[in-house]
Every structure is written in structure tokens, then in C-alpha cells.
């Protein structure tokens, strides 16, 4: 899923759960999207072929899989004595929901680098994926805009 989708979805969920999401909008944006920076080496490697190949499991590093989830959860436990609990909950939720939505919609290698086996849940068939992604992103963006205006 694209970065905007993750940001819009996480913003709306934080707003629903805690309220006052605007106060944390910077954190929500960073922790909803920073893990996608691991696509950069793939983008540089494939260059123009990216339009043809798209962002499959090959574009993700180990930090986008269970390995990254493990490191992140350990980091949160270590940081829990230093940072505010509400902030930690928000950034953790944003990060985990990013991994979860990528796992649900796309192809992933959950145990990479220990296994290169790719899995696909099939919740959204490949041929509709781009259209579904655009439509959902627009809907979430509209909902976020409405929630800010109200």
C-alpha cells in the first residue's frame, strides 16, 4: 500500500481511539511511512522497470517483515521507561498497522531473511489492486479531511 493510504488510515484510527490526532500528526506521519524507506534500494536498482514490476515482496527489506516487528517491539519495550505511554501506543499502532495492511493486501515474505517463501492472502486480487488502492486512499483522504474540518 502507498504511504498516503497508511497515513490517512492511521490518522483516522488514532482520532477514533484517542481523539486529538492533530496533536500527534507528525508522529503519525513518520511512523506510518518511514518503514517504506526500505523500498529505496529497490527503486534505485530497478529504476524505470518499477512501473512494470511494481512494489512486490522483492521491494521490502527484512525490517518490513516479522524481523522488523520483533526489533520494533523490543525498541518500544526499551523506550517505555523514557517516553510517554500514549505517544508510544500511537507510534506502535501506526507501525504495526502499516505491516498488517501490507501483509493483508500485498505479497510478503514473513520470515525473510530466514525463508524467502512468498505468501499472498488473496484478499484483493492482483489485477484490481491498483484501482482498489487508489479508491481506498481517496476515500480515507476524504474522511481525514472531513474529520479535520469538523
Amino acid at each position: 500500500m502507498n504511504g498516503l493510504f497508511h497515513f490517512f488510515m492511521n490518522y483516522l484510527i488514532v482520532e477514533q481511539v484517542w481523539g486529538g490526532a492533530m496533536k500527534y500528526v507528525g508522529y503519525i506521519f513518520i511512523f506510518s511511512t518511514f518503514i517504506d524507506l526500505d523500498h529505496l534500494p529497490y527503486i534505485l536498482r530497478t529504476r524505470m522497470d518499477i512501473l512494470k514490476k511494481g512494489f512486490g515482496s522483492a521491494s521490502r527489506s527484512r525490517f518490513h517483515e516479522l524481523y522488523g516487528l520483533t526489533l520494533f517491539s523490543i525498541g518500544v519495550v526499551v523506550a517505555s521507561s523514557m517516553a510517554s505511554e500514549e505517544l508510544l501506543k500511537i507510534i506502535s499502532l501506526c507501525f504495526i498497522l502499516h505491516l498488517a495492511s501490507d501483509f493483508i493486501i500485498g505479497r510478503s515474505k514473513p520470515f525473510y531473511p530466514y525463508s524467502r517463501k512468498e505468501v499472498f492472502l488473496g484478499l484483493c486480487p492482483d489485477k484490481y489492486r491498483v484501482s482498489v488502492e487508489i479508491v481506498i486512499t481517496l476515500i480515507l483522504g476524504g474522511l481525514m479531511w472531513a474529520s479535520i474540518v469538523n
Partner: protein
Amino acid sequence: MGKHSKLKFVRELRRVTDDFMIRQSLPKWRPHLVSGVSIIACIGFVLSLNHSKGIAFMFLLLNLGLDWLDGLVARKYHLVSEEGYMVDVAADRLSEGILFVMFMMPWFYLFALNNIMTILSFKEKKHIILPLRQAFLIYFFFRFIV
């Protein structure tokens, strides 16, 4: 899944609980799809938690029920595979992450431990994981529902 063997007492327990269910007529859903929906149930739990603990409890039950169902369907229709094991375990960890974010201490700490155990279990081909969501279900019931 055979490559990742469970502890003997867990296998025995699963045999008792699953044998009866596998003989029943179960829907022929794709186990991967059921795992995906079980994660979505966790998002429902998070969204409903501050509004209604009863509805949140229902989402928690749904998550655990679907997690049980995906394994049953896979065994009944002979769809057990290495890929299925990976999906099941990854869906379990992501579900735990979403659920336990709301209850930092001690649940998120145990979740971090479970993540480490998952990686080690996969490397050692021995499935040793803490049944955190089952314990959490009991905790949640007595803490918020009763």
C-alpha cells in the same frame, strides 16, 4: 506445518479439541483469507474498545475463533502447507501487536518476547509460542466484562 512440530502436550490438546470439529461440515474458505480477516477483527477491537467493552470482547472472540478456524479448514481440506504455517504465525503476531498496543504493561512486553520466540522457533523448527491472546481473553473477560 509438519516441519514445525509443536510440543507433545500441545499436540495432544489440539487433537482432543480439533478431532470433533474436523468431522463437522466446515465452510471451504481459503485459510489465508480467514487469517487476513482475523487481523481485521483486531482493528475492530481497537476501534470499539473505548466505546463498548462488550463489542470489543466480541471482536476478540472473533479473532480467536477465526484463528482456530483457519487451522481446522486447512486440516479438513488437506491444505496444510509451509506457506500456511507462515501466514498463520505472521497473522497471529500482527493480531497480538494490534491488540496489545492498547495494554502496554505487561501485554506488549510479552508480545515482544513472543516475537523473539517466533523467530527462534522458526529457526529451530520447533513451534514454542506463548498463548497470549487466549490468556488475554480470560484477563479481559474478568477485568472488563464481569
